[in-house]
C-alpha cells in the first residue's frame, strides 16, 4: 500500500499526523478523560450523592456485589439475548434491503427514503408509537386478527415484552444501516462485475466473491457499531417498560440508571458501567478478530 513513492520525510510526517489527529486528541483530553477516570474511580468507592464531599474507598466491594445481585444477573442475560437477537438480524436485513433497493429499477429512491424514515425520529417517540401499537387493542393485534391469529398484550406478557422491544429496535434501525450498506455498495467498481459476467459467474458467485469482500469494511463497521449500541439499549426500555414486567426487560444500562438515579448508589452504578464496558470491549475484540480473519481469508481466495 505504501509504495516507494511516499517521499515525505519522517519529521514532516509526524507533524502532519499530529496536526490531523489534534482535533481528536484535544477533545479526548479535555472532555472525555476526566469523566472517564472520575467514574472509574467512583466504581471503587462508596459514593452517595447526598454526601458528595464524603466518599470512601471500597476496594472491589462494588464489583463483588455484582455476583450476588439478582437484578444484575437478570439484566445481563436480558441484554445478552437482546444483543444476540437484534444485531445479526438487523445487519442481515439491512444488507438484504440494500441489495434489493440497489437492484430494483422502479422507485428505488422512494423505497430508500421510506426504509430510512424510522431512523429519523428520536427513539423515544418511536417507542411511544409502539407502545400504542403493541397495546391489546392496538394495530398489531388488529393485523393478526385479519389472519385469524390470537392477539396479545405484547408489552405486558412476561415472555413477549423483550421480543417486542427487540422487534421494534430492528424496525427502527434497519433503514439506517441499509443506507450505510448502500453507500458501500455504490463504491464497488462496476468493472469487477462486468469482468465476472464475462467469466459467466452466477449472481450468487458475484455476490459471494465480489460484493461481500468489497463491502467487508462496512460490515465490520456496522456490526461493531450495532453491537455497541445494542449492549447499551436504554431509551426503548425506559419508555416502554421500565424493565418490567417482573424484570423481564431490565437491561444493563437501565439497571445502572436505576441504581444511580433512583437508589442513588453512584459507586455501584459506575461498577456496573465498567463491567459493561469490559463486556462490550471483549465482544468487540472477538468480533473484529473473527471478522478480520474472514476478510483476509476471503481476500486470499479471491
Amino acid at each position, binding site marked *: 500500500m505504501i509504495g516507494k513513492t511516499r517521499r515525505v520525510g519522517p519529521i514532516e510526517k509526524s507533524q502532519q499526523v499530529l496536526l490531523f489527529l489534534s482535533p481528536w486528541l484535544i477533545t479526548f483530553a479535555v472532555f472525555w478523560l476526566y469523566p472517564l477516570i472520575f467514574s472509574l474511580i467512583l466504581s471503587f468507592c462508596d459514593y452517595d450523592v447526598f454526601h458528595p464531599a464524603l466518599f470512601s474507598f471500597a476496594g472491589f466491594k462494588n464489583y463483588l456485589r455484582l455476583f450476588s445481585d439478582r437484578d444484575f444477573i437478570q439484566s445481563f442475560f436480558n441484554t445478552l439475548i437482546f444483543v444476540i437477537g437484534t444485531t445479526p438480524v438487523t445487519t442481515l436485513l439491512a444488507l438484504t*434491503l440494500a441489495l434489493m433497493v440497489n437492484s430494483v429499477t422502479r422507485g428505488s429512491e422512494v423505497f*430508500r427514503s421510506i426504509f430510512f424514515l424510522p431512523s429519523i425520529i428520536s427513539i423515544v417517540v418511536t417507542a411511544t408509537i409502539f407502545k400504542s401499537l403493541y397495546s391489546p387493542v392496538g394495530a398489531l393485534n388488529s393485523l393478526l386478527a385479519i389472519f385469524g391469529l390470537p392477539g396479545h398484550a405484547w408489552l405486558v406478557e412476561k415472555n413477549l415484552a423483550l421480543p417486542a422491544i427487540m422487534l421494534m429496535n430492528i424496525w427502527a434501525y434497519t433503514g439506517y444501516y441499509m443506507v450505510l450498506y448502500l453507500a458501500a455498495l455504490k463504491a464497488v467498481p462496476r468493472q469487477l462485475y462486468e469482468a465476472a459476467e464475462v467469466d459467466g459467474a452466477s449472481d450468487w458467485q458475484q455476490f459471494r466473491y465480489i460484493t461481500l469482500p468489497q463491502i467487508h469494511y462496512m460490515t465490520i463497521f456496522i456490526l461493531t457499531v450495532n453491537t455497541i449500541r445494542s449492549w447499551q439499549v436504554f431509551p426503548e426500555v425506559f419508555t416502554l417498560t421500565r424493565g418490567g414486567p417482573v424484570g423481564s426487560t431490565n437491561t444493563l444500562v437501565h439497571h445502572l440508571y436505576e441504581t444511580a438515579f433512583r437508589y442513588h448508589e453512584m459507586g455501584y*452504578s459506575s461498577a456496573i458501567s465498567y463491567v459493561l464496558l469490559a463486556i462490550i470491549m471483549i465482544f468487540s475484540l472477538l468480533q473484529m478478530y473473527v471478522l478480520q480473519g474472514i476478510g483476509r481469508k476471503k481476500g486470499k481466495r479471491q
Partner: protein
Amino acid sequence: MKQHSSRQKGLFAILTALALSYLYPWLYMLMRSFMRHEPGQSDGQGLFTLDFYRLVLGNAGFPTYLFNSFLVLTVVLVANVVFSVMVGYAFARYKFPFKNFLFWMVLVTLMVPKQTLMIPLLDLMVRLGMHNTLWALILPFCVDGFNLFLMKQYIQGLPADLEDAARTDGAGEIGILWHVIAPLSRPAIAVLIINTAIINWNSFLFPLILTDSASVRTLPVALAMFSQGPYATDWGALMAGAAVSSLPIIAIFWLFQKEIIEGITSGALKD
C-alpha cells in the same frame, strides 16, 4: 429478458410490502397529531384538528428552542465533517506510536454508557464555566467517535493509487487530504452528515443535564417538557412535536442521499 422483468416485479412487490410496514408507524404518528378520538372509535377515525400543532408551534419559547437546536447542529455538523476526515485519514493511512491504543480510546467513548458520565461531565462543564451555555452542547461533540470510526473504515477501503499518484506529482499531505481523499469520501461524508444530524438533533440526555435555562434549551428537551405530564403523556402534542421536529432531518436526508448514491460513481474511482 422476460425472466429479468418478472424478477423485477417480484422484487418490487416484496419491497412494497416491506415499505408499507415501515411506513405504518409514521402514518400513525401523523394521524394522531391531526386527530381527536371519540369514544368507541378505533384508530383512524376521529375529528381533524390542528390544535396539537398550534400547541407546539404556539409555545412562547418555540423560536428560541428551534434556533438553539439549529445553531448547535450547524456548528457540530461543520466541525464533524472537517475533523472526521482529518482524523479518519490519519488513522487509516499513517503509522504512528500508540495508534491502536488511541483508536481503542475512540471506541471506548462509544462503549461507555452515557448515563455514567452525566455527573462528571456536568462537574467538568461547571469547572470550565461552560455549564448552562450552548458551548457545553457543542464543544464535546465536535469530534464524534462514531464518525471517526466510519471515516477510518471508509478511507481504508479506498484504493491508495490515487494518493500515491498525487504524491508523485508533488502534492503535500494536506493537499492530498482535500483534493484526493475528501472528494473520494463524499458518500461517507454524506452518511456522516445524516448520522450526525440525527443524533445531534434528537440528543436529549446531555442537553437536559448540561443546561438549565429556557434561553439555551434545545428542541427535544422542550418537547419532553410539554408533552409529558406528571401522570400522563399528551399524545397529540408529542406526535405533533415529533412530526415538526423531524422535518429538518428529512430535508437533510433528501439533500444528501443523492451524494451517497451518486457521489462515488461520478468520482475518479472508475479510472
